[in-house]
């Protein structure tokens, strides 16, 4: 029966090609817009690391100026990052099973002169726990261990792309890479790693962009005088000491700090630990603002940092409304199309088709139209997303930042079916109300 | 009242020419009640369309109420239809979305009559056909006979000089047919000219004259003898209304 109905629907679409094309294009435009912007929003909004959402927490402390809050929306905004001195103290806690402070810097890479000129590269500085915490996939070797953080071994992890560039993609574990005036030994090479946003550092550019191409230990911060190339916000008098020594004691916040807490008890314990730390610091004249420490899971953090741009929300709302209007719009066209065929329906009814049969037949026809429009819209949205990707490249996003994944394709088809139903329900209902064989009476 | 001389009407398609009316002539005097009979395809409807200025013709002359109507514009024809002619259709042609009042109102609005006068005319006409209690019913809520009586009220409200009726009882059963024919007879008795197309002999018999059409031509006319006019019994309320 379904097959028969599909056949009727297909025949009917071919009968009035101009009208069918108009109807299909109407749905396709709505679906294309909605899919494009749903996918665009999804690229920002989706959880980049769902597997670790339960256990990973981002640490923020209100170490800011007692006179006024950190600039932001509310009165109790906290700095987005932590100071070095706080990170160093917090890292002494044994509550987290893993923890890391991290920041990005830029260093010159001096490759084999036969390979390329020296080039400046963004490098992530982190502790050994970083790799297992963020489920970083390795192609060759692995991350370094805690001992390397303690002793300051010159070890580095390369991204797949960097390994491709420097070593032609071969297993380069054990080879050396020169950063500025030091040689680093490669201990690991990553496999393809494309989190939707850079979950471990959402402080800049909404986390858009590919992960850094090289990773070295936080142990190298002091010896190499590494400066953050991310945000660094501070307040109050500058420290007496110059350079790194000054940063170590200053109120500059510039480090992203993550902890892995295995269960709710650990989360509660760590929360109390943070509060106790802040109260203790208060005795030394710091943390004079109301107690306001944040221990945020990934979704909460993305919300706080407004990772989803307001443009993405706006455009999604507008395109969904557009889809709604274009399906409403089809009601009139379908009504005309269906009622024009009243004689045929009279015959069908006279030959024993029930109201439900007629309704189902026409709803299926609408859904076929919706699906054809949806598929066309889906194809158009691939073009739309490609266009968005070229626009986003200027913002440093990777070329496939916006993409159609399975949930988005599913959503798109669901929307198409919904649009078909909205457009077709009333005409189909009207059609099935036609009395049987009224039109058999020919004068 | 109506004078047609040598009227020609040809329908052309790519393949054939059909002479719907061929050298058609007819005189109808004021106050007459003429029945036009003929088989289907004999040109009855074509005659009615031309007589009612619903369609144009290709040759001959047509004087309506002494006025030559062969060179009128669409607008002038509309005005004449609106003022001088009343139509009674086989399938009533009431407007399904409008109630009795609004349906009778339709031609009056096109005459741009003031609201008070329209209201009075509608009330009188609907009363004449005995449907005062149904003023705000929709056509779908009325029987066929009642619908045709509404259509007749629509004619009466306009007070036309000529009524053209197209198989007025064609879609009605015997009882209802009789009511409608009674009504037409009463209207004619008050001096309104009626030309009625029908193929029901019992209806044609009510007319003062019968004309037979064959292949677009009048074949013979028969004048009933004076005093032979049959006056059938009239339903009580109709009689009261017409009194």
């Amino acid at each position, binding site marked *: 029966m379904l097959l028969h109905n599909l056949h009727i629907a297909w025949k009917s679409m071919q009968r009035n090609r101009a009208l069918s094309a108009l109807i299909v294009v109407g749905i396709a435009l709505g679906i294309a817009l909605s899919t494009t912007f749903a996918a665009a929003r999804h690229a920002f909004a989706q959880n980049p690391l769902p597997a670790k959402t339960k256990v990973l927490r981002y640490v923020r402390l209100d170490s800011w100026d007692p006179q006024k809050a950190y600039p932001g929306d509310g009165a109790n905004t906290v700095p987005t990052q932590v100071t070095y001195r706080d990170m160093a103290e917090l890292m002494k806690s044994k509550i987290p099973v893993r923890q890391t402070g991290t920041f990005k810097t830029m260093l010159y890479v001096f490759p084999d002169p036969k390979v390329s000129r020296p080039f400046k590269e963004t490098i992530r500085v982190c502790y050994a726990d970083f790799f297992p915490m963020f489920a970083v996939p390795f192609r060759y070797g692995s991350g370094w261990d805690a001992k390397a953080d303690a002793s300051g071994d010159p070890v580095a992890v390369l991204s797949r792309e960097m390994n491709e560039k420097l070593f032609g993609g071969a297993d380069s574990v054990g080879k050396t890479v020169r950063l500025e005036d030091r040689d680093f030994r490669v201990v690991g090479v990553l496999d393809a790693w494309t989190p939707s946003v850079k979950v471990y550092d959402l402080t800049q550019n909404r986390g858009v962009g590919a992960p850094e191409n090289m990773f070295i230990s936080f142990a190298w911060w002091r010896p190499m005088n590494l400066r953050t190339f991310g945000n660094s916000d501070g307040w109050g008098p500058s420290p007496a000491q110059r350079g790194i020594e000054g940063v170590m004691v200053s109120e500059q916040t510039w480090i992203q700090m993550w902890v892995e807490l295995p269960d709710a008890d650990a989360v509660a314990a760590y929360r109390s630990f943070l509060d106790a730390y802040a109260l203790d610091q208060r005795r030394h004249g710091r943390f004079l603002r109301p107690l306001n420490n944040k221990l945020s899971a990934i979704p909460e953090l993305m919300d706080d940092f407004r990772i989803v741009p307001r443009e993405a929300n706006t455009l999604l709302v507008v395109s969904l409304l557009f889809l709604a209007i274009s399906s409403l*719009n089809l009601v009139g066209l379908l009504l005309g199309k269906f009622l024009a065929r009243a004689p045929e329906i009279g015959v069908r009814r006279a030959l024993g088709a029930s109201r439900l049969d007629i309704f189902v037949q026409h709803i299926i026809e609408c859904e076929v139209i919706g699906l054809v429009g949806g598929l066309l819209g889906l194809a158009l949205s691939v073009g739309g997303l490609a266009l968005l990707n070229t626009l986003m490249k200027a913002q440093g996003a990777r070329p496939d930042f916006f993409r159609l994944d399975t949930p988005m394709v599913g959503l798109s088809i669901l929307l198409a079916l919904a649009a078909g139903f909205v457009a077709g329900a009333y005409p189909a209902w009207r059609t099935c109300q036609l009395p049987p064989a009224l039109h058999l009476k020919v004068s | 009242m109506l004078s047609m001389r040598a009227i020609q009407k040809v329908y052309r398609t790519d393949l054939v020419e059909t002479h719907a009316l061929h050298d058609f002539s007819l005189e109808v005097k004021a106050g007459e009640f003429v029945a036009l009979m003929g088989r289907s395809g004999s040109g009855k409807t074509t005659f009615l369309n031309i007589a009612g200025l619903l369609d144009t013709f290709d040759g001959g002359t047509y004087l309506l109420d002494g006025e030559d109507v062969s060179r009128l514009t669409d607008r002038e024809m509309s005005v004449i239809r*609106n003022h001088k002619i009343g139509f009674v259709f086989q399938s009533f042609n009431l407007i399904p979305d409008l109630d009795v009042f609004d349906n009778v109102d339709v031609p009056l609005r096109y005459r741009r009559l003031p609201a008070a006068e329209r209201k009075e005319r509608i009330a009188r006409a609907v009363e004449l056909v005995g449907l005062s209690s149904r003023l705000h019913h929709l056509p779908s809520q009325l029987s066929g006979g009642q619908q045709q009586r509404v259509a007749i009220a629509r004619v009466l409200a306009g007070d036309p000089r000529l009524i053209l009726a197209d198989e007025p009882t064609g879609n009605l059963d015997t009882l209802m047919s009789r009511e409608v024919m009674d009504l037409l007879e009463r209207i004619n008795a008050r001096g309104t000219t009626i030309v009625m197309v029908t193929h029901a002999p019992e209806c044609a018999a009510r007319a003062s004259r019968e004309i037979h059409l064959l292949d677009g031509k009048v074949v013979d006319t028969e004048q009933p003898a004076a005093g032979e006019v049959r006056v059938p019994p009239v339903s009580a309320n109709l009689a009261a209304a017409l009194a």
Partner: protein
Amino acid sequence: MEFGPILRAMTRSKVRYGLIVLEVALTLAVVTNCVSLIRDAQTQLGKESGFDDANILVVRSQPFAPAFQETGYLSNSVRQDLDVLGKIPGVKAVSNTRFLPWQGGGSSTETRPAGSKGPWLRNQIYNADEGTFATLGSPVVEGRGFTRGEVEAEDARLAALLANSRERGEDGTPKNKISQDVVISRAFARLAFGDGSPLGKRLEDSDGDQYHVVGVIDRFYNPYGWPIHEYAMFYPSSSATYAGGSAYLLRTEPGALETVAAAAEKSLLAANGGRNLRVRTLDEVKRGFQAPQRLVLGVLSGVIVLLLFVTSLGIIGLTSFSVAERTRQIGTRRALGAQRSDILRYFLLENWIVTTLGLSLGVLLAVALNVILVNQLRAHRMDGSYLAGGVLLLWAAGLLATWLPALRGARVAPAIATRNV
């Protein structure tokens, strides 16, 4: 006018007309809010930096040769670079500054009028040299700018001062205060000192260091993460480090951008090869910054056009359907004396009623949608004139879309009435 009967007849097909009412209402709501969002985006895009954006090049030098780690070598190379760049034909002015307009950020600090106990005022802060204001095309309009001698003297003075840790006083701030001459933007001058001339006045930061206002520029707008887009302070200094490299702004003669860009990269590398260079036009930087707004603008404009098109199609479709369905009725009306213009007017009036009902509902929806956009998406309140404009536009679109099918209705032959089904 047959207003009453039309309205009464319409109540017999509530769903059908209701759909168009809803469609018109949603269209008005979406179109007016789109226009409002477009105006927001245009306001953003229309903000002028106040600089000669179209004729400015941004050059970034990133050294890798170890020689650059030596301070003397580094500052010599900056001076050499400025020389080389200044000699390129078509170059009007050159500057070595960390300030890069249109990148959506920069550096900032907090200051307040010296001696006041008032709130700290956040402002953007950048170094400038003798060419900075000429290069930006935002001249010092009050007071003076900086000279080469001043820049070099300041470099030397600050290097000496900051070579060692500064001794702290009781309050934790350095004992010996630094005082620098600065040029500030007009908006910041107003914020800090009100309407009077700021020349000769002083600002201080949280270290107690002093900033002595010697000049004012009128035009400065650089979008920042915090609402300090127009508050700027420039101090005399060159800017170059081994790690951060050095950046130059070049202002060219109109039309010389391309040739200068090519020449700049070549001659800088020829002067010193131990580094990588990146040359961009300021317009490129600006386009990158404005890309999201441009996208919104483009998409919303497209949506408006498509929506008007789609809604008009819907009205055409429904009127066509109405006319086709009522062919017999039209014939009857014509038989009863309706003129063609009466039929045309009937459909136009019917549509006008539907559109107007839709627009009334649409005004409510538009306001509701706007409230949502304002609350959820931080959009701006809609201007009432957009509503008025949208209503007029949709009225016109509705009448136009009805016209063709209604004309077809007016052409229905009156003889249809005698056709029997």
